């Protein structure tokens, strides 16, 4: 497998691994900035799988989906960072641990 031909499975496996790395970042890092970066990794992992699928099937539609994902990701980053800035103004910190006002 290592030295064999590159298959769709290779790309899917890479996508999965990238996703898991991003997931670990989302779950384990305290800084909300890093968490948002890890979220970008998650989206990219999905994009990679989509593009591989488009290549495999020979159709352009998944690539359009990737296009939309990138657009939405841009919007998400903008809003997310704006929230982050607002929160920072309020609490002077970006650590996720310090935001526990939902705790009962």
């Amino acid at each position, binding site marked *: 497998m290592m030295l064999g031909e590159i298959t769709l499975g290779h790309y899917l496996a890479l996508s999965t691994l990238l996703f898991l790395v991003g997931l670990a970042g989302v779950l384990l890092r305290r800084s909300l900035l890093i968490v948002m970066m890890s979220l970008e990794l998650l989206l990219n992992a999905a994009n990679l799988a989509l593009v591989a699928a488009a290549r495999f099937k020979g159709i352009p539609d998944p690539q359009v989906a990737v296009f939309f994902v990138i657009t939405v990701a841009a919007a998400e980053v903008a809003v997310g960072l704006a929230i982050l800035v607002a929160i920072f103004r309020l609490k002077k910190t970006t650590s996720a641990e310090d935001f*526990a006002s939902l*705790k*009962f």
Partner: protein
Amino acid sequence: MIAYAPYLILLLPLLAAVAIRLFLYPFPRIAVPVSVGACLGSFLGSLMLLNAGTPAGGMAAPAVPWIELAGLKAGFSLVADPLARLMTTTVTGVALLVHIYSLGYLAKDPCRSRFFAELSLFVFSMLGIVFADNLITMFIFWELVGLSSYLLIGFWHQRPAAGAAANKAFLVNRIGDFGFILGILGAWSLFGTISFADLPSRAASGAPFWAATAVGLGLLCGCLGKSAQLPLHVWLPDSMEGPTPVSSLLHAATMVVAGVYMLIRVLPILELSWVTMNTIAWIGAVMTLLPALIACQQNDIKRILAYSTLSEIAYMVMAVGLNIPGPGMYHLVTHAFFKCLLFLAAGSAIHGCHEEQDIWKMGGLRKRMPFTFLVTWVGTLALAAIPPFSGFWSKDAIFAATYDRPGLAACSMAAGFFTSFFMLRMILVAFGGKPRSEGATHAHEGPPAMVVPMLCLAVLSVLGGILPISDFLGMKPDHPHHAWTLWLSLLLAVAGFFPAYHLYQGAMQDPLRVPILQAKFYVDEFYQRGLVAMQDGLGRLADAFEGWVVRGFLVRGSGVAARVAGQGLRLVQCGQVQLYAAVFILGALGVVGWLLGRVSS
């Protein structure tokens, strides 16, 4: 052209009612003449219709298609056969006189726009019943007269008694109407038609005896409610809380006889079962006697007349039960004249005595209101069936049919005796002797608007006997007259005057005290104790069910359950957004795992 006359007659009062309600309400000076004018128009139309010859094949106004279901076809059509024409003329004629009378009676009432609007609505509804050519249409107008009766009884809604009486009338009528609609559905399923034109031929082809009996009794139920017969008679005396013109028009002359009119319409169905016919005849016979007894001990002038109305309607019901619709209709028409007259005269006396209704607080009106006194006597003689007044001829025709039914004859002739008794008692107490209250001392005759209608009705009450009503209707020939029924009934009617004269001439208080009659045979008490108590018990049971099971357990219980669950789940909240994310991921992984498991298997 004449074919459209029924529509004109029917819709004029409706137009007046709608116009008054929508536009003319604040202007009684315009609203009242509009209502009276509409009634006059209807009356003239009725006269025209009455005089028009009957073309071959009957005469029905053009139909408007309305309900057309499989097996049920009810066009909105008006029937103008002799029966309807006679009834229309009677209704509009009496209604016109009562309208005119009301001009004087309610001249100072600030709400007279409303009164006349409701009166017009009533005339419309009543004419609807008369013209209806099928049971469904009739039922709709039947309910409409119930509504206008409710509105008019409660016209003085400031009085709690009026509101209660209106409610009572409405509710008691509901019971009868329930039976009526069952009867209509029964007739439809049994004969496949609800049209009066088709019923005789369908009924003639026969039907199962007990089914026909059930249908007939159902229809009879409607009559018992509307015409206030046993056991649903309790609302009529209470309905006297309404203004006197209302009592006169609705609760004596027209509306309450709608039940009789309906019975005559469906007579082909009733005839199928001797059980139904005998039930009707016996209810009628008993109801001639009981109210006449009760009336002997009543002190409210309008209630006395109300009980006598019950008794007189019972004569018509008995006539239907004896299968002599001609005399029944005959009595209906003459009764409309003389009973309306009596009520108007009573209203005149009440008006003259400043709204005093207790005959023991009147007295001496003979001198102060001689005209009212005179017309009361005319009405009384007609009511007591003294020749040559109109009541004699119509009642005699009914008595003649009882010649081979001694039970019925005994009841109805005894009722004649008591009728004479209580009517003379009323006259002697109210009009004779000396004034017994401040109001009676200053009594005076009403304005011409009140006098003229009474005069017209008095003339009709005297001469009504010469109307060839049975011939006009073309119904079954009357029974041959039997001398003994005539003489016996006449004898009893005259005999009733003597004890009344002896007891009440110059009496200052009632020398007779019969508790059971004063309490009206305890029927109201029986309903109160039995039915109302049972209903209250059921209500309390339902309330307890609602309170404990619905409100306590289901509503509050589910609320409490949700709150407890929420309080429990709040403990899970740690506020750490990443922990939430982890849980979310685990859930997503679970879903993915489940999908993979499904794909691989």
